[in-house]
């Protein structure tokens, strides 16, 4: 078990070192590979963070340009995804500051529904309908959450990041991360059964 954990840790460290080396060289092939590898995760994070699909797509492109330009700043002691999300987050905040002087509070909803839930495949009709209904409720609930709660929830439950990694991306203390996850999840709870009154 320990040997397996050691193997995974050392192979991750080796991957991070290779990425750092490639980024310092501004290797376009490495960037192509990274864009492919992180495409869905990064876009999902940005969609949750901004609440707007079109803006998220613009920031997605800007993030990779920034990764190219500032790649030499990446330190291989961190996971690449943590650094990538931090870059994306800074760009999102810069964007909002240009629009209005605020931080993540500015990332409010403007009527767009970015978290569309597509129809699920087969499975028992009732279960599928119930699940789909719940997913729609939660997607709707997410749009009503403050951006910092959405961010904490997506990093924790979709990206599977540790609390420390989330704290590093969001640049907040660990206690704040815990509080955001707890409050975000509690705020979503009423949405599970439908829109709260």
């Amino acid at each position, binding site marked *: 078990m320990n040997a397996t954990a050691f193997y995974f840790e050392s192979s991750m460290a080796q991957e991070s070192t290779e990425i750092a080396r490639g980024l310092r060289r*501004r290797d*376009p092939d490495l*960037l*192509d590979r990274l*864009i*492919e590898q992180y*495409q*869905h995760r*990064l*876009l*999902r994070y940005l*969609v*949750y963070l901004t609440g707007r699909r079109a803006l998220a*797509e613009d920031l*997605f*492109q800007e993030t*990779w*340009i920034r990764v*190219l*330009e500032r790649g030499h700043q990446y330190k291989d002691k961190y996971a690449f995804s943590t650094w990538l999300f931090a870059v994306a987050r800074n760009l999102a905040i810069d964007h909002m500051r240009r629009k209005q002087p605020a931080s993540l509070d500015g990332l409010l909803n403007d009527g767009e529904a*970015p*978290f569309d*839930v*597509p129809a699920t495949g087969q499975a028992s009709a009732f279960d599928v309908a119930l*699940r789909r209904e*719940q*997913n729609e*409720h*939660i*997607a709707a609930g*997410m749009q009503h959450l403050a951006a910092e709660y959405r961010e904490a*929830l*997506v990093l*924790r*439950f*979709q990206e*599977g*990041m*540790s*609390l420390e990694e989330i704290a590093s991306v969001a640049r907040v203390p660990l206690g704040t991360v*815990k509080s955001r*996850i*707890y409050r975000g*999840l*509690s705020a*979503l*709870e009423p*949405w*599970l059964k439908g829109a709260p009154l």
Partner: protein
Amino acid sequence: MNTAMNNDAHERARKLTALAGPEALPGADQTWLAAHLETCASCRAFAENARETIHALRAIPIAAERSLVSTTQTKVRRRALELQQHRERLWLVSISCTAVTLFALLSAVALWRGFEWLGARAQLASSVWQVGFLVFCVMPALVAGILLLAKDTHLANHTGSYQG
């Protein structure tokens, strides 16, 4: 007092439930939480709802479209090329600056000796030929500065050439 303690216990249980993620809770917390959930129906309901909420959260699929990925890759490659060209230009400019500096140093030494020799031949005071040397060295930069400052003023006509 007892109610306050109970409220603390419920809150602790809910926080532990919410924070249980990819990594497992520490053993003592896990045991405590399991024992609490055994006896507390409301926290059990919260845990169940949290589980379903997390499941629903994970089920919201957001995928990047192929066109977005390929556009991004193209833009990144183009920018990488620009940066590389910029770096190459910067390298050329650095080499040129170094060469010019070296040449200027060498020629300054030679010029100094030349002015010294001329001064001696013409039997001039050393301060005179030294001033001459200074003016000779500064003159090109002085003329270039005057021409640049005169650009877009009454000294230059509309086509940018200088009036006599």
